[in-house]
């Protein structure tokens, strides 16, 4: 087996129309500036993709990129990133996944794939260190993700596969790898439009080792210790999965209830992680390698099934006023099989329920009633009846049928399960997140609503916090390592750990930039430098790391502005701007406008939200 | 929806404008009967009105203004003397002998043969600050006339002449369509009559 120190540094470019492929080395400058994973994927598309192409057309591309940590054995590093132009939002979509495909791709000797063109007939790809084989997929076309994946895995160690939803161009279809998904933005439909049922990577052909092995091992251990100490990563997430958040959100009044009208609900405990863990006797089922272990499975109705994540619970549960964990996990599994994003599905179903209630569409969906939901999921996946309209997402459906004011999406991407009226900073984060309504762009709400480290209703310094975390998380997605390591990396260093949370809150209120700049993020850059064998300078490297994140974030923004995004799109659903939650006696709304103004200023965008040439130049993004 | 977010709003009051207008109405009201005695033309116009005729110029239907607290204590027969300014109306009565009386601002127990009502306080301000002349005010629908229109036109002609007497020329020019020419009203007569009207109107 070939051993590679550092990274493969080569990309496989595949054209489905002509059944050709070529190998492209990664420009060292791109590696320096855009790191890998998300950043690299965006840069590849930035160089190749013409703005204004049809997301479901031949000319759209999808890039699948791993980071330098992949296959090095760093904790929680088994993640890879997909980048494409989304058919749901019409702008760039990025998604991260912890399935086995990433590892297999990297150990096949590639750092990434760029796929373009459109196959004439259903196809799947088999990738090894030599290149790619195009194979007819007629046999598995029309099968669900589980069955198809099983077939594909006979040819390699990791596979990507779409279900019927992707084949039927459901705009929020996802791509499955193992038990994990490239969830958001409708990547499945992009593959479906290209008639690409799946991709298999053979894997196990090369071995990746860090250049500075000893330093790497040392950091690795320290990070592992931090993760094992942290209350979130080693406590609630490890014991209950992400739906440990149900309790926290419900208490903070940011749980979406009845299509984002409630804020909290008395029955929410029925679907909390704690209840489910007890009820279904859960065990772990996670990405590799992982030591947080947020993924769980359990025995539900006598069958071993994955336990839904918090977002799935939130949006298919309380947001539809359903508090039965069994039906939610059934729907979750159904979505998995068809290959659909549960967040967008939940948001769209909630919209459909409210639209039905208000006489805009005619379905048998009703808040609080599980009746008809499974059927509707099937109709959406297979494009039958009104399901065909709902398969376009809530933005499209609400433009057709009305009810745009309660279609809970930003830029076409449905909101995840945190109500920003109880955490206004998160409201700004939703509005400015590049791919649309996304909590992973900047998870400010944890500080605001969970840890009590920032005032959830104050707008002061929130733009700064949002920018800070956007930069950090963009960089994390370039490494690429799990987001949840952030709890350990950010909160475990002694300075912040020893300061009581209410003091942090006061500091954040008065001198947030100072407080944030004192935050020690050194684990991440240290890992990066150890793998690539570069010299690590304390603090400076951390600043550079954040700047790389900023570069990636601004690049994505810039690419989006070329697709028509501007200030008008950086907004929130009308409901969040004008109505209070039922649980909130003071009827808070999100005061978006003043925060946005400030945010643009510190980001270096003009008043219309477009990155200025100066900003692009400062970050080293070539202007096109 | 929290209904308290959208409170009910009772209309407020513009006190200074009300005060100004009540003084204006009082002045004009006191001046007209006197002017009718002095000026032939006014007399001629008013002769067209039938006897035992009551007309009013109304800005707001309320009969007394808050600051003029005394007004509410006065019995009707005193209030009808119109000795003091206190309301948003001007009532003029022509008695059986054809003599005119200013009757203050109290509409209680009176029946009006002609009523000219301004549509709003601001509309009255437009006319009484002479940003719009009386005919323009009429054309702009600033006030509505209830009763027989020809009497109103006659009364508006009277108002025009009284304004010429009461106001200095630069202001009066704004208030009337055509300031009287020499042939119509000689300066000597004008100044003399103006003096008489001012003295007699405000010396009780």
């Amino acid at each position, binding site marked *: 087996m070939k051993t590679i120190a550092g990274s493969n540094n080569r990309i496989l470019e595949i054209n489905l129309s002509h059944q050709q492929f070529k190998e492209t080395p990664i420009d060292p400058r791109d590696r320096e500036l855009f790191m890998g994973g998300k950043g690299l994927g965006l840069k590849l598309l930035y160089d190749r993709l013409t703005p204004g192409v049809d997301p479901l057309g031949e000319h759209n591309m999808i890039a699948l990129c791993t980071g330098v940590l992949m296959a090095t054995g760093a904790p929680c590093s088994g993640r890879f990133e997909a980048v494409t132009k989304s058919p749901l939002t019409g702008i760039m979509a990025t998604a991260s996944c912890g399935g086995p495909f990433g590892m297999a791709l990297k150990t096949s000797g590639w750092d990434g794939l760029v796929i373009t063109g459109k196959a004439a007939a259903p196809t799947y790809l088999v990738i090894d260190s030599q290149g790619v084989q195009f194979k007819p997929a007629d046999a598995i076309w029309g099968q669900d993700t589980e069955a198809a994946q099983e077939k594909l895995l006979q040819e390699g160690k990791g596979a990507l596969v779409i279900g019927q939803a992707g084949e039927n161009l459901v705009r929020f279809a996802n791509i499955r790898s193992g038990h994990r998904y490239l969830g958001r933005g409708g990547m499945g439909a992009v593959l479906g439009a290209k008639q690409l049922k799946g991709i298999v990577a053979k894997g196990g052909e090369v071995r990746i080792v860090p250049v500075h092995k000893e330093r790497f091992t040392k950091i690795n251990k320290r990070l592992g210790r931090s993760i094992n100490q942290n209350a979130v990563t080693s406590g609630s997430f490890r014991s209950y999965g992400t739906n440990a958040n149900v309790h926290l959100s419900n208490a903070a009044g940011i749980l979406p209830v009845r299509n984002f009208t409630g804020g909290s609900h008395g029955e929410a405990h029925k679907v909390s992680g704690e209840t489910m863990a007890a009820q279904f006797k859960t065990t772990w089922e996670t990405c590799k390698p992982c030591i947080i272990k947020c993924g769980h499975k359990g025995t539900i109705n006598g069958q071993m099934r994955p336990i839904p994540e918090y977002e799935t619970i939130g949006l298919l549960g309380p947001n539809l006023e359903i508090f039965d964990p069994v039906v939610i996990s059934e729907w979750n599994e159904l979505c998995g099989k068809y290959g659909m994003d549960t967040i967008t599905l939940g948001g769209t179903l909630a919209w459909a329920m409210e639209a039905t209630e208000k006489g805009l569409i005619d379905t048998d969906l009703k808040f609080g009633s599980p009746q008809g939901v499974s059927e509707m999921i099937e109709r959406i996946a297979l494009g039958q009846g009104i399901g065909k309209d709902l398969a376009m997402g809530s933005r499209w459906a609400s433009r057709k049928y009305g009810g745009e004011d309660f279609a809970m999406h930003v830029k076409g991407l449905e909101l995840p399960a945190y109500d920003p009226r109880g955490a206004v900073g998160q409201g700004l984060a939703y509005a400015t997140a590049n791919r649309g309504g996304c909590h992973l762009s900047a998870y400010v709400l944890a500080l605001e609503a969970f840890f009590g480290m920032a005032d959830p209703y104050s707008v002061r310094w929130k733009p700064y916090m949002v920018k800070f975390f956007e930069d950090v998380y963009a960089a994390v997605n370039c490494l690429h390592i799990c987001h949840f390591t952030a709890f350990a990396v950010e909160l475990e260093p002694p300075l912040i750990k020893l300061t009581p949370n209410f003091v942090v809150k006061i500091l954040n209120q008065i001198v947030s930039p100072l407080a944030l700049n004192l935050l020690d993020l050194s684990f991440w850059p240290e890992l990066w430098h150890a793998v690539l064998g570069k010299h690590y300078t304390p603090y400076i490297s951390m600043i550079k790391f954040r700047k790389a994140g900023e570069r990636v974030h601004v690049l994505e923004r810039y690419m989006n502005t070329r697709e*028509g995004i501007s200030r008008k799109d950086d907004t929130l659903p009308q409901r969040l701007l004008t109505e209070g939650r039922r649980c909130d006696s003071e009827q808070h709304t999100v005061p978006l406008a003043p925060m946005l103004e400030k945010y643009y200023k510190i980001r270096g965008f003009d008043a219309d939200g477009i990155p200025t040439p100066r900003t692009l130049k400062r970050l080293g993004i070539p202007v096109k | 929806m929290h209904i308290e977010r959208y409170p009910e709003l009772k209309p407020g009051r513009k006190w200074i404008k009300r005060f100004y207008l009540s003084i204006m109405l009082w002045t004009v009201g006191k001046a007209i009967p006197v002017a009718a005695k002095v000026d032939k033309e006014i007399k001629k116009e008013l002769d067209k009105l039938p006897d035992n005729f009551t007309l009013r110029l109304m800005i707001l239907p309320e009969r007394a203004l808050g600051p003029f607290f005394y007004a509410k204590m006065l019995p009707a027969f005193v209030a009808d003397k119109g000795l003091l300014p206190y309301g948003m109306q001007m009532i003029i009565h022509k008695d059986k002998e054809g003599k005119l009386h200013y009757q203050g601002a109290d509409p209680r127990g009176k029946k009006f043969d002609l009523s000219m009502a301004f549509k709003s306080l601001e509309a009255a301000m437009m006319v009484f600050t002479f940003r719009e002349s009386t005919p323009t005010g009429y054309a702009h629908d600033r006030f509505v006339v209830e009763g027989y229109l020809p009497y109103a036109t006659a009364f508006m002609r009277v108002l025009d002449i009284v304004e010429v007497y009461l106001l200095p020329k630069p202001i009066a020019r704004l208030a009337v369509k055509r300031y009287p020419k020499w042939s119509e009203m000689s300066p000597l007569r004008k100044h003399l009559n103006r003096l008489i009207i001012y003295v007699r109107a405000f010396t009780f």
Partner: protein
Amino acid sequence: MQIPDSYEFLLYPKIVSGRCALENLPTELDGHNAQKPLVITSQALARSGRTKALIKAFYDSAVVIGAIFDPVLDYAGISQARQAARLFGNRGCDAIIALGGGPVVALAKAVNLLASEKRETLQPYYDGTPIAGPLKPLIVVPSGPTDGQEATPAMTVDNRTIVSDSLYPGVFVLDGRMTSADDGRDLAESAAITLAQAFTALTMARPSPMVDALAHPALALLAQYLAPALRRPADKTAGLALANAAVMASAASANTGPGLFQVLAAALADATGICLGTCLGILLPFGMAALQKADQPVRDELCLCLAGTERYSAMAAPDRPVRGLELAAALARELQAVLPASLKAMRVQHYLLEPVARTAAEKGAGGFTADECRAILTRAWEANA
């Protein structure tokens, strides 16, 4: 001047415009036997303090404002309509005042419908149920950007349109304090809609002298006041004049129906989420060029409205139609100083043009085919006249 063999005309709303027009509101309400209006307005107008001027207009009157319902953003939907209708009932209101334009007025019409007919949804009306009786009085006080539907019997709520004579607003009260614009962009967007409507009225196939008479001042005011208004959006006179033009053009369009521009721009706005005014502003010059090439006879009236009697008379008679089109195109170009010059500059995704052209042609874009629509869109995309 030709009188067509038959035509139908209605200018339903009363227009009150000018100095102190706001203070006429109590009288207008009184004329409709109403004492307690519900005011519907947008968040932006409430923030800019316009509602304060409105409240002051009711000082010294007998009118109590039932409530000021002000959470409207740029979308009229059934949720807010229901809330406002509930407020209407709770406070015992008997009239509606819509302060604003576009979605505010649409919402006010919907609230009126829900409150007067005592319903919870608009579903029956979408299905074609006629509106039973006269609704409560609705007074519109235009302010901010318009969508051209205010003075028509149509309302677009939840992206669906209901048309009924009962939905006509009774009165438009235009006051300089309310109509001056906050920024040039809004103003240009509204002006683009006004221009398109007036242009359609004056170039439509079956001319009616009354529609001409209605569109004439709209276009004339636009030609005269657009430049000063764009130079200084806060200019009260110009703002009032443009608001007048907008109401007149909107009322004219109620008699003509949508033309090429409106259909095309509406399809484009639907597909891209860009506001109608911007779409129209970009499309107008290219559409006018297409009309010019299409050799459809244009009547002299267009030239008369834009050039005024003096310049019109000085022109040679055969030149007038062409000069009219040129002047209209010049007016449209004036807008482009503020609005983006092309769909490309607006970052409209090229692949959307095809479906937009098809949708527009299906809806009957003034008799233009999908290919012609696509040609206009493509030229507008490249800014290539």
